[in-house]
């Protein structure tokens, strides 16, 4: 089984420096792309690889790149932004890539920037990732020193500046247009779309925003081709995936496995459940995805299969709900996060999420009324897709909507017994 993304990552996560990375085949894709492929050829290769964005939404990467104006008449400068603001609860995969193999990300960024003919690349990193920041800064300096960044890279005529930007902490920075506002020094509130960032992004110029894991795939696709990439997978969605597991499992962590690996196998890669705990459900891809009950364990974790059962692949990092944890309290915890991180721009989300949080709090401690379930269901509907300015509120409603139906008996028991049965 091939693991291109994590092949260089050592158990202690000490990253390879530039010479080591090169010895392992690093920066070969950069040479190949810049010296023997046109930007358009790179876009075509990535497009035919069917790589889908690994940040949560799963949009086809190559297709996103085609929306950027190209050629001598395109507005300048053009930007590539790496979204490394990983702040979705339960998601911790990009940290592994940045700490363990920073040059892979840098190379992925340069090749991707070349594909869209960008002049400047920004690496937008959440500030809490201090270790990643130090390692990335070192890798960037090494890449400049070797002529992989800067003016006329390897004599190809292509130039790129790459800057590392650390944020100041806020979930909204992970939302594409919120991230752009934040990079411009503003509050990270989202922007209206259209126009889309590909044509009107940072400072009004064409901008592509890709997730860390997405960009890390690009050098491998350039080196080995689209067909190889598709062959890595076990389903229609191509490539490998960094799957993660957290919660009451024996070895919480990340494993790189073929796309389409089943939930059961991913749980096994984490050593299975801890002694004395049984699996009840998982949140498959970070806090904003719907619960999937244990019965669906043999389902492949990929974009299409999860969609078929009403959930989402999201970031592919699952959070385990065991049988000794109160599901109502878990939902309250999830909604507390979203209520706190809401940017406050639009009323339904700003007012609705704290209300949801308070209702869940009341039910959990035994002060809930039967009507509260209707009120919660009403919120799940009225904060749904298309009714708020951005996807934060609809995302917040995904675990709630699924939780209300999956754990209905638990909710009713809290209300009937006027206490939490788990305490």
């Amino acid at each position, binding site marked *: 089984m091939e693991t291109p993304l994590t092949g260089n990552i050592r158990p202690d996560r000490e990253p390879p420096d530039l010479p080591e990375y090169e010895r392992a085949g690093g920066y070969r894709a950069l040479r190949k792309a810049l010296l023997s492929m046109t930007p358009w050829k790179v876009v075509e290769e990535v497009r035919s690889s069917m790589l889908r964005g690994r940040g949560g939404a799963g949009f086809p990467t190559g297709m996103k790149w085609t929306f950027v104006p190209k050629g001598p008449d395109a507005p300048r400068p053009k930007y590539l932004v790496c979204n490394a603001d*990983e*702040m*979705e*609860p*339960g*998601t*911790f995969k*990009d*940290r592994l890539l940045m700490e363990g193999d920073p040059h892979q990300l840098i190379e992925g960024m340069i090749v991707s920037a070349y594909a869209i003919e960008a002049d400047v690349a920004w690496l937008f990193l*959440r*500030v*809490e*990732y*201090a*270790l990643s920041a130090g390692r990335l800064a070192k890798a960037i300096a090494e890449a400049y020193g070797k002529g992989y960044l800067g003016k006329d890279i390897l004599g190809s005529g292509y130039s790129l*500046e790459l*800057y590392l930007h*650390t*944020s*100041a*902490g*806020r*979930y909204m920075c992970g939302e594409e247009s919120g991230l752009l506002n*934040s*990079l*411009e*020094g*503003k*509050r*990270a509130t989202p922007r209206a779309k259209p126009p889309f960032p590909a044509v009107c992004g940072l*400072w009004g110029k064409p901008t592509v925003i890709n997730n860390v894991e997405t960009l890390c795939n690009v050098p491998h696709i350039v080196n080995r081709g689209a067909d190889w990439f598709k062959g890595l997978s076990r389903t229609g969605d191509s490539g490998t995936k960094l799957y*993660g*597991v*957290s*919660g*009451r499992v024996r070895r*919480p*962590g*990340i494993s790189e496995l073929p796309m389409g690996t089943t939930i059961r196998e991913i749980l096994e890669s984490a050593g299975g459940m801890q002694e004395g705990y049984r699996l009840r459900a998982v*949140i498959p891809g970070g*806090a904003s995805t719907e619960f999937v009950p244990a019965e669906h364990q043999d389902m492949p974790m990929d974009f299409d299969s999860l969609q078929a059962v009403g959930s989402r692949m999201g970031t592919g*990092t699952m*959070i*385990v*709900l*065991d049988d000794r*944890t109160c599901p109502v309290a*878990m939902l309250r*915890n*999830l909604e*507390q*996060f979203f209520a*706190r*991180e809401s*940017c406050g721009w639009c009323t339904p989300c700003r007012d609705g999420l704290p209300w949801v949080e308070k209702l869940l709090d009341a039910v959990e401690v035994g002060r809930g009324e039967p009507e509260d379930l209707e009120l919660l269901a009403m919120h799940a509907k009225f904060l749904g897709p298309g009714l708020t300015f951005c996807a934060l509120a609809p995302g917040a409603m995904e675990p709630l909507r699924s939780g209300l139906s999956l754990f209905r008996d638990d909710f009713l028991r809290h209300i009937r017994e006027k206490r939490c049965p788990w305490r």
Partner: protein
Amino acid sequence: MMTAEEIREIEAELAHYPVRRAGAIEALKVVQRHRGWISDDSVKEIAAFLGMSADEVDAVATFYNLVFRRKVGRHVILVCDSVSCWVMGYDSLRDRLSASLGIGLGETTADGRFTFLPTACLGACDRAPAMMVDEDLHGPVNPGGIDAILGNYR
């Protein structure tokens, strides 16, 4: 007054941006690094330096979780209260920290040594329950090991 050092650091960041005000967050971070937090005076100074109004800078400062608009202690403890850490025992970690420090969330110890804050997911869910002290990540934190960890920060 901004120090020469602060100005030098902010200017270095500004060089990457096409407009000065884009450096607002960087400027807040630079000043916070030097002074520990962002006072009303700091807001005004940054505003003047970047050609913005104080309200504009304050709007940015108050939006971000890790820009401190109130004085904080020498060390800031961020305890993750998001879902994976919550499942793995956030409540008891918080309670033990609170007891050891003698303060609740959002407070600073009387000797000015620690400020204790909740934080959203630290991206260390495999090490839950997790916390950060300044730039150091700790996890999984066993409540019994808290005093040893705190002992490293004077």
